[in-house]
């Protein structure tokens, strides 16, 4: 049954409370099963051989010696993956990324894989595989890849989005442009124009759990895959397409997921594990090492960005432009487009233009990373906003308030905004006690704003009421950070029962209809919406059962506070029937009671945040310490405030790491020099202060409870907020993240001349 999705401003009994999560005990006792935590009888262990070169022709792969090693049961190379993609280029890109086809495109690109009786044997077998490479010229820097004469990554790529269509190959896969108005006329009206170029280095999502799966594929084309993923339904579709299987015959179960942040929305080794299993006809377990995770999965784009903003003396922006160059690794992506779309989304601009260039380089295929592409664009734009405010002699917060987008603003990427939170978050920054904290020597304060679209998508949910009145809720989105608690709260709220009476399970692909990947901050938004509707469908059944029990028309029955009540004076002798009582009678009143819902959860409300940070920079070492950090974000409605705060804090911490430490470092040979947590240093506990949070609730008009996605926006402002704080502390504008100690020292020394 379709339901109205509009926000109704209803009151809540349970939603908004801080209950304990249902999977808590499993996770504090070590019982919870993640990707690498299951085994099958007779399983083999798989390992992957990876290219040591940034770019090379694969002239020959000799597996004969490895195949003869006792205990080796299957070996695959690119030749073992026939093309089932039917001309779908993006599917072929995924396949080629999983296993090289004649050419290694980056350091770490898979060239062969082995399944053997144990890991030791598989490792020995990898050493016996002889690959003959012919090294090719490589390029890893985004600007160098766009320059004349750069080595071309794919000779079939023509720049999309330019007229007339190019006839020669380029590393620019796509140009995308957004905006409105006349920027030239706008700049002509400006009293002050600030223009600056920025660079951001490549970072990794850094989930602590490496990719892992247990694959079983039989000669009949039926299989099962246990895998750590953000989207088991999508994994099923992609693996089926790449391997020529029927979707219905591949059952994919998502394990508990040890972090994803976008990096587990893509397949990396799963098709390889399935193909090895098909060849050996035995279960195959494949777990990536941390080195492989860094070299061959995940990372976000490194970028190079020009931003120009002009304003009148009164503080109104007259025009803004950005050119954003994002590398997407060795395969085309949509990352520059997202950068161009998000760059000016916080502001109400008459004349605005942003142009994105998606650039191919010899680095791993770029994956989504939490509000993908937005943090880098915000670094450029929010830095220039601060520079411009300083030139105008205006307070940085006031300047932003004056130009903030509001309800009715035409967004720089197209749509007209409904009610949004950018203005309120800025006002909250202005009023926050953090603003009044005094700064000492070598200390600086910075702030910045951030935006993310959020996503809804296809969602399918089942709610089943047991004979004792307890409830099983089965959802198809993955629980990445406590969503089972939120969804149980929603189901209990709708049914009018206790939170503890609801048990939420993540269904496998054979238990539910298709669910889109858990991305775009959609878990609680979309599965929450489907849960509301599934519960309302179950309530219709409960009402019918009560009506039948009382022998009155169902339109005389209402559902209130967890019980069916008979309306009207003629029914005043009928005592209410609780959910428990109706459930107990269900075997005799028509059988099981259930509610189901499938929905395309449109209307994910856009999300805005403003962050405020104080830092201290050691002028001798260039080392930066975060002293105080405050996140203010619009959640629409916080279903479970603890886990909303957790998203705010976690995103901020990832942004802090990106701003100050984290970067992929490539040598002249095009090989990654720091594929490990020792040299790719993510923030540790002693690096951070408590991260203060303030949740604003500006209801999303397109969700019954007003929910907006909350997971991603929090990583958008930190690069710029810290950039502004560091710049204020040292008196030099920082334009390159991470602002590592050597970079800060160099900036100070350069400024001193």
């Amino acid at each position: 049954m379709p339901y109205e999705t509009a926000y109704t401003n209803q009151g809540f009994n349970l939603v908004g409370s801080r209950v304990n999560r249902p999977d808590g005990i499993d996770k504090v006792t070590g019982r919870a099963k993640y990707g690498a935590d299951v085994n099958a009888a007779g399983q083999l262990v798989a390992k992957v051989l990876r290219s040591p070169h940034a770019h090379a022709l694969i002239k020959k792969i000799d597996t004969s010696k490895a195949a003869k090693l006792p205990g080796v049961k299957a070996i695959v190379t690119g030749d073992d993956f026939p093309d089932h993609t039917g001309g779908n280029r993006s599917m072929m890109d995924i396949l080629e990324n999983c296993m090289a086809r004649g050419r290694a495109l980056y350091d770490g690109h898979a060239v062969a894989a082995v399944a053997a009786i144990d890991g030791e044997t598989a490792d020995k077998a990898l050493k016996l595989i002889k690959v003959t490479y012919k090294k090719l010229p490589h390029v890893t820097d985004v600007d160098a890849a766009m320059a004349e004469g750069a080595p071309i990554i794919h000779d079939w790529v023509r720049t999309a989005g330019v007229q007339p269509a190019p006839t020669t190959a380029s590393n620019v896969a796509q140009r995308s442009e957004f905006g409105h108005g006349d920027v030239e006329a706008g700049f002509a009206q400006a009293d002050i124009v600030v223009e600056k170029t920025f660079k951001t280095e490549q970072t990794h999502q850094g989930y602590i759990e490496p990719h892992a799966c247990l694959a079983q594929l039989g000669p009949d084309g039926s299989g099962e895959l246990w895998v750590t993923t953000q989207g088991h339904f999508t994994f099923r579709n992609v693996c089926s397409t790449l391997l020529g299987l029927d979707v219905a015959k591949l059952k994919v179960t998502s394990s508990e997921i040890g972090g994803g942040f976008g990096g587990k929305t893509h397949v990396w080794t799963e098709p390889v594990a399935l193909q090895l299993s098909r060849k050996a006809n035995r279960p195959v377990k494949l777990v990536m090492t941390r080195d492989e995770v860094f070299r061959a999965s995940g990372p976000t784009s490194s970028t190079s960005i020009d931003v120009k903003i002009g304003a009148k003396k009164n503080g109104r922006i007259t025009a803004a432009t950005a050119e954003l160059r994002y590398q997407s690794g060795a395969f085309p992506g949509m990352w520059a487009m997202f950068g161009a779309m998000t760059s000016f989304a916080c502001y109400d601009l008459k004349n605005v233009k942003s142009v994105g260039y998606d650039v191919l380089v010899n680095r791993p295929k770029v994956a989504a990373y939490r509000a993908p592409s937005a943090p880098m664009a915000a670094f450029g734009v929010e830095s220039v906003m601060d520079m411009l405010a300083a030139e105008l002699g205006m307070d940085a917060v006031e300047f932003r308030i004056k130009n903030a987008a509001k309800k009715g603003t035409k967004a720089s990427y197209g749509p007209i905004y409904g009610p949004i939170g950018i203005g309120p978050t800025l006002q909250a920054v202005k009023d926050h006690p953090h603003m009044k904290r005094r700064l000492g020597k070598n200390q600086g304060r910075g702030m910045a704003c951030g935006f993310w679209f959020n996503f809804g998508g296809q969602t399918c949910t089942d709610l089943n009421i047991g004979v004792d009145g307890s409830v099983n809720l089965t959802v198809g989105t993955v629980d990445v950070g406590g969503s089972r608690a939120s969804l149980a709260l929603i189901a209990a709220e709708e049914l009018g029962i206790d939170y503890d009476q609801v048990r939420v399970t993540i269904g496998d692909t054979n238990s539910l209809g298709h669910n889109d990947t858990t991305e775009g901050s959609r878990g609680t938004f979309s599965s929450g919406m489907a849960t509301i509707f599934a519960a309302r469908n179950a309530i219709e059944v409960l009402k019918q059962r009560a009506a039948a029990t009382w022998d009155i028309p169902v339109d005389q029955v209402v559902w209130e506070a967890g019980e069916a009540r008979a309306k009207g004076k003629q029914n005043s002798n009928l005592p209410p029937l609780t959910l428990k009582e109706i459930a107990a009678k269900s075997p005799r009143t028509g059988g099981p009671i259930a509610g189901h819902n499938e929905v395309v959860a449109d209307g994910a409300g856009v999300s805005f945040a403003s962050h405020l940070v104080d830092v201290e920079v050691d002028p001798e070492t260039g080392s930066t310490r975060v002293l105080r950090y405050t996140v203010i974000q619009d959640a629409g409605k916080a279903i479970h405030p603890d886990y909303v705060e957790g998203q705010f804090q976690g995103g901020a911490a990832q942004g802090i790491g990106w701003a100050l430490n984290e970067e992929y470092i490539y040598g002249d040979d095009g090989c990654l020099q720091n594929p490990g947590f020792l040299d790719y240093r993510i923030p540790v506990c002693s690096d951070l202060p408590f991260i203060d949070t303030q949740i604003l609730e500006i209801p999303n008009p397109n969700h019954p409870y007003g929910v907006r996605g909350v997971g991603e926006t929090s990583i958008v402002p930190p690069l710029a907020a810290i950039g502004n704080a560091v710049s204020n502390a040292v008196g030099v504008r920082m334009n390159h993240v991470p602002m590592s100690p050597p970079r800060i020292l160099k900036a100070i020394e350069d400024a001193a001349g």
Partner: protein
Amino acid sequence: MNGVTVSTTVNGDAVQFVCPPSESLLDVLRNRLNLTGVKEGCGTGDCGACSITLDGRLVCACLVLGAEAEGREVGTVEGMSENGELHPLQVQFIENAALQCGICTPGFLVAAKALLERNPNPTEEEIRYGLAGNLCRCTGYDKIVRAVQAAAKIMRKGRKS
């Protein structure tokens, strides 16, 4: 396989296993003893997901050989609950929402327990440096530090009574 026979104690129980001399204690615990609460995040001692205690000392199981467990006492997250009761740290991690994905949680719990045994009343800074060997990518550590503070307080009260 030229296996080594090892007799050790794991979470208070006597255990025997055979493993190759090169096999890490982490692989032994996970693959031979089925203690998969001990997680592998890096295999190089950088992330702390495989934190265990060896004769009471906090170590990364990935940096210890299985053979080195001979005659020692190994403690893992699976041994934290006693008499069917969760350890106060386990309770406070749930109460304070100190986990999101939970993959780092076993390591944090073992490390925090070792910390509080050494120092029952740590300052915030001592907690932060005490847990600096454990990586968490989800939480920003805020709620983890608060959970450890809450558990330490409860444990100190428990000692007095």
